[in-house]
């Protein structure tokens, strides 16, 4: 596993020939801290939609959109049922419902049973986004204490998407990244600092 973060040029080379249209980022224990480091790396004018999903208690309200709204230049909101996905927006999955991306690039919510004790489940969001975007999707799996997300990342991989797993040695809790690595070989295994460098490069207009 790469302990040191690769350079910007190396990361750019890893993305050669790809056209990323959307980014999905999932995590559990420790991932809010990771997102606080990661999301401010999004430059002003970033054109891709970014879907963020972290495991939360099933309370009715999540304050994450509010928290990140204050820190990011991009609009940040909780993904709403049947809402059309707007490029350049950062979306969070709200608590208590599964979030999916439909093929017509709208969101849908559902009350199906929890997956791996989680609702919203990372697997559900990632697998549905993989169906909608195929090779145009980039998936990032961060720190976490259970196996949710591994299957979703594998689905992105199988659909030709670009997959990045946080280096387990760099993760606050390595279970989630390790479970993903057990199932498939992602395009990149990176420490958080590397993902920070990579995130802006997904938008091909980024110089």
């Amino acid at each position, binding site marked *: 596993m790469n302990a040191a973060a690769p350079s910007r040029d190396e990361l750019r080379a890893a993305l050669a020939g790809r056209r990323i249209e959307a980014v999905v980022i999932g995590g559990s224990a420790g991932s809010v801290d990771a997102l606080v480091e990661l999301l401010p790396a999004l430059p002003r004018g970033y054109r891709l939609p970014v879907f963020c999903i972290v495991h939360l208690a099933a309370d009715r309200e999540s304050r994450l959109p509010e928290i990140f709204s204050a820190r990011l230049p991009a609009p940040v909101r909780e993904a*709403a049922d049947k809402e059309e996905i707007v490029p350049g927006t950062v979306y969070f999955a709200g608590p208590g419902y599964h979030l999916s991306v439909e093929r017509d690039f709208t969101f849908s919510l559902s*009350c199906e049973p929890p997956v791996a004790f989680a609702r919203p489940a990372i697997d559900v969001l990632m697998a549905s986004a993989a169906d909608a975007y195929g090779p145009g999707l980039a998936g990032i799996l961060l720190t976490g204490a259970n196996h949710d997300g591994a299957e979703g990342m594998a689905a992105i991989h199988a659909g030709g998407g670009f997959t990045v797993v946080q280096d387990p040695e760099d993760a606050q809790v390595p279970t989630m990244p390790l479970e993903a690595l057990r199932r498939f070989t992602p395009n990149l295994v990176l420490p958080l600092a590397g993902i920070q460098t990579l995130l802006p490069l997904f938008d091909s207009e980024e110089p």
Partner: protein
Amino acid sequence: MNPLSDIDIELRMLVEAVYLKYNYDFRDYTGASQKRRVLAALKAMACATVSELQARVMHDPAAFTRLLQFLTIPVTEMFRDPEYFLAVRQQVAPVLKTYPSLNVWVAGCSTGEEVYSLAILLQEEGLLERTQIYATDINPDALEAARRGVMPLERMRLYTENYQKSGGKRAFSDYYTAAYGGALFERSLVENVTFADHSLATDSVFAETHFISCRNVMIYFNRRLQNRVLGLFHESLCHRGFLGLGSKESIEFSSHAQRFEVMSRRERLYRKVGT
């Protein structure tokens, strides 16, 4: 758009076949969740492909009944989102008390959790005796379970907690007895309940109603079907009638948005405006 995979093509053919053969219309359900549920059915019914499942369902009505259990979503709880029931108690019930008789429609009642919750609430507000409740669903097995009113005992702790938060006035355990390996709810609660097979996708309005509760049903529908359903509700509701939706549902984006006014945005309570 990402090209359709084989499984996506098969899924469309399956719902078309189900519609033509059994007149159950899932064609305007949202895709992602439907796909997950059919995949779960594939596994449970030991079919290698959706096409194989389709062939079985076409030639064996029992297989269809089995599939229907996956296609409908019988996941709910009593007094789910207690704040909703509290708002119904505090804001809707006082107005309902002004009517000498009432019709309440629980649309998509599934296995009855919401029916029993509302019946308890109406009883505590002194309204149950004058209320006719219509509890409708497309799944006959779910309706049968709703009629029986036996809930898993292990859920009672959560339901009790929800009930208390919803402004419940008694001990929740007053309403059920342990029987048939579960919690059997008081029969008097459903004396005035008509459990009926009704499809929001294909059937029309059957009664004038004062209050419609339809929670976490329309999230499984696409915009077109959502619009149809809101049209049905508007038609069924009496002048200034009430509509309650799930905590993440909204009518703001629908073509009927102007025909309802927001009564409580947080609790998703609306009132009909116009005729």
